[in-house]
């Protein structure tokens, strides 16, 4: 089977599942949630780079309802940031700390690749790391 080239909705979702390490059924991220993430990411990409969606006499953002062979009309060099945006949006759903960090990485890359700007890192959730003991407060090494 050829590797996903991100041309169609099906290929794009497959590529996102690769990034999410979610390739075995039953999926952790359902088809509906990934299609929603695709549509939301396309809408957001239109905000950042409307030139990606120029049609003959205007700007049209495609929206999808199911995983199909429909071609996503975005130039090939801009499909990778779209893939990152979808993965980031999907990961935001998770509550685990490590997923927050990965979501931020994907979303920052998505924005950076489209705009050349590196936005500030959003606050990550999760439990604070345990405090380390101050130096010299522990029992002396060695001794009697």
């Amino acid at each position, binding site marked *: 089977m050829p590797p996903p080239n991100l041309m169609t909705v099906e290929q794009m979702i497959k590529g996102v599942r690769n990034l999410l390490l979610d390739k075995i059924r039953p999926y952790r991220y359902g088809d509906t949630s990934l299609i929603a993430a695709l549509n939301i990411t396309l809408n957001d990409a239109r905000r950042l780079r409307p030139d*990606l969606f*120029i049609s003959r006499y205007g700007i049209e953002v495609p929206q999808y309802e199911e995983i199909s062979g429909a071609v996503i009309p975005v130039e090939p060099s801009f499909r990778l940031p779209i893939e990152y945006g979808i993965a980031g949006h999907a990961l935001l759903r998770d509550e685990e700390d490590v997923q927050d960090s990965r979501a931020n990485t994907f979303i920052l890359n998505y924005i950076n690749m489209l705009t050349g700007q590196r936005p500030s890192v959003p606050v990550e959730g999760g439990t604070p790391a345990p405090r380390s003991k101050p130096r010299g407060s522990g029992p002396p090494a060695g001794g009697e």
Partner: protein
Amino acid sequence: MALDPRETQQLLAQAQIKLTGASEAGIKAELYDVLKEFFEDSSCWQEDIPFLPVANQTEYLLAPAQDGQIIRLNGVWDGNLSPVESYMPDFATLILRWPPQSDSPANFFARVTKTVTLPITRDALPVAPDWTLRVYSIHILDGLVGKMMGQQQKTYSNNTMAAYHLKRFRTGIQLAKVAAERANLKGAQNWSYPRGWRNNSQRGGVSTAYPTRF
């Protein structure tokens, strides 16, 4: 009438090399604006439109045969190449100052300046003369790159380089304007006697190698 396809491909490739992260669709959309400014300010896209005057009729609709939007009336000449007083209050509607006394036996012609307009081609390119990029591709590229770099919050945004390229673009417009005024004749003069003093013969005047104002 369309842009030269090989020149167009070359232009788009050069623009993408200079504009990291620019989309082809965005470049083509900006190219429309660049060409519009180029033709409007240089008046280098001209066409002679013939029409047959009818007795007592002063208003004539001018339809360019080779695409484009008429933006300026350069002049009207009768069958003997004598200037005819006329004006164009509405774009593409010619009005003769004095109604003809009778039907003219020969065509008059109106010389107009044009610019790009919609519709664009199927490839999303503006419709413009094929010589545009063959002759002025460097200046068009400067305009294109300058305008793209002037966009904010893009991977290719660069205000300093935008100013540099747009300055070169304006220089190109001036070159095209002067060349059009002199009908691309090297050494031609842009000066001529005022209308009352002008004639078409060299009698009583001085013959020069560069006679001319067009």
